[in-house]
């Protein structure tokens, strides 16, 4: 098993767009989704983001994420359909229970909000290397220590992940059973996690020394060695995102 990752490498215009512009877009459209009161409006946002994702060539990946949310969507329809009566109009009955029309429409709205979140955030996370995002934030005055905390997870997670197999081997060879009844497997939890955590914390201790040596706690200005330039037309794209957000807020206010 490999450590999780969502980034899909590529060189489409969406990939090349700067992380801040994509971030503004993703945040505005996600929030817009929660303001638009009607599922039909949400469907428009959905299509807009789907078009961007198609241009980035990551539709297949995002479809996987949408499918993974299926269970949540089903619970929307069941829970809201059964309990959100509104005017009391029953759409249909299943197993003797009434499913209300307004509840089902509300569930559809919720489902689109969920999908809209996945798609809008997907524009950012599926096409941006986490390191580039952090570099872009650092250039805008994001504190370097916080930037390090986020960026280094990308590098460190695979190393801790790889140690799981080694620890499993070592403990099984000393007689720790990792198969069998629930009790037995529960007892293997500490011998598994103990070495992983202790080795990681010790490594963190040494890594802190290495960071000190490299001037990590030095005061004064820092250089961003690989500056991330804004994409051409960045202002226009960001404005469009914010405009869509404003329009959604207006729609909400009017209703």
């Amino acid at each position, binding site marked *: 098993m490999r450590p999780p990752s969502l980034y899909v490498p590529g060189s489409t215009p969406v990939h090349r767009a700067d992380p801040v512009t994509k971030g503004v877009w993703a945040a505005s459209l996600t929030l817009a989704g929660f303001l638009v009161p009607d599922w039909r409006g949400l469907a428009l946002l959905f299509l807009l983001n789907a078009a961007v994702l198609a241009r980035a060539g990551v539709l297949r990946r995002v479809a996987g994420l949408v499918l993974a949310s299926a269970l949540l969507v089903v619970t929307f329809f069941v*829970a809201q359909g059964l309990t959100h009566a509104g005017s009391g109009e029953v759409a249909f009955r299943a197993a003797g229970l009434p499913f209300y029309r307004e509840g089902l429409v509300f569930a559809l709205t919720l489902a689109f909000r969920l999908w809209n979140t996945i798609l809008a955030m997907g524009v950012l996370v599926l096409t941006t290397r986490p390191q580039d995002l952090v570099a872009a934030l650092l250039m805008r005055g994001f504190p370097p220590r*916080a930037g390090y905390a986020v960026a280094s997870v990308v590098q460190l997670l695979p*190393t801790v992940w790889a140690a799981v197999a080694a620890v499993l081997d070592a403990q099984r060879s000393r007689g720790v059973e990792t198969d069998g009844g629930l009790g037995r497997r529960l007892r293997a939890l500490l011998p598994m996690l103990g070495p*992983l955590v*202790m080795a*990681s914390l010790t*490594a963190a201790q040494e890594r802190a020394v290495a960071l000190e040596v490299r001037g990590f706690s030095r005061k004064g200005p820092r250089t961003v060695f690989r500056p991330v330039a804004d994409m051409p037309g960045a202002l226009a794209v960001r404005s469009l995102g914010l405009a869509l957000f404003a329009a959604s807020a207006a729609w909400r206010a009017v209703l």
Partner: protein
Amino acid sequence: MQARSVWSLRLTTFMVALIPIAVAVNFVGKYVAQVLRLPLWLDSIGTVLAAILGGPVVGALAGAVNNVFYGLVQDPVSFWYAVTSVFIGLAAGYLAYRGWTKTPAAAVGLGVAVAVVAAVVSTPLNVLLWGGTTGNVWGDALFTSLRLSGFPVWIASFLDEFVIDLPDKVITVFVAYLIFRGLPERLVAQAGAVAARDAD
């Protein structure tokens, strides 16, 4: 121990280096639970451990970084729940400082407290974002039946979240407590651990 407030924002380099490790431990805890086929998430052991070792601020930062990172690599929806993770870190860090890691019984209490905090913070998010459900079949079945019996959305949604959080957070905190107890003195001292360990 120097008279540093438990809410101090001054982070040593070791604490900064601790945060990515806490996030990695969150992920690996979940992975190990899968390898051992345990019916648990165990995906916040690192956050709780960081909070016990470094205090509420470090715990909160670990929680925030965890969800940002989780959002980037696994599930974009998780950005919203960064708030919950931050409060888990704050609560675990503060209560550990108040001595809730001194005995196994106190650690179970800490687990319950963390579960309550997690559910209280998640409930408004669940209600505002998703109409109150959580996506967990058992929790949502409870939600539906409570709603049908006339309970308000907020209470039904809180219980939906809480029945899932309670067992998971109690075990998560207990595992973190056992690991914390077994850590070398030198490391605990360097972290400036705000939590107390009983002398054994």
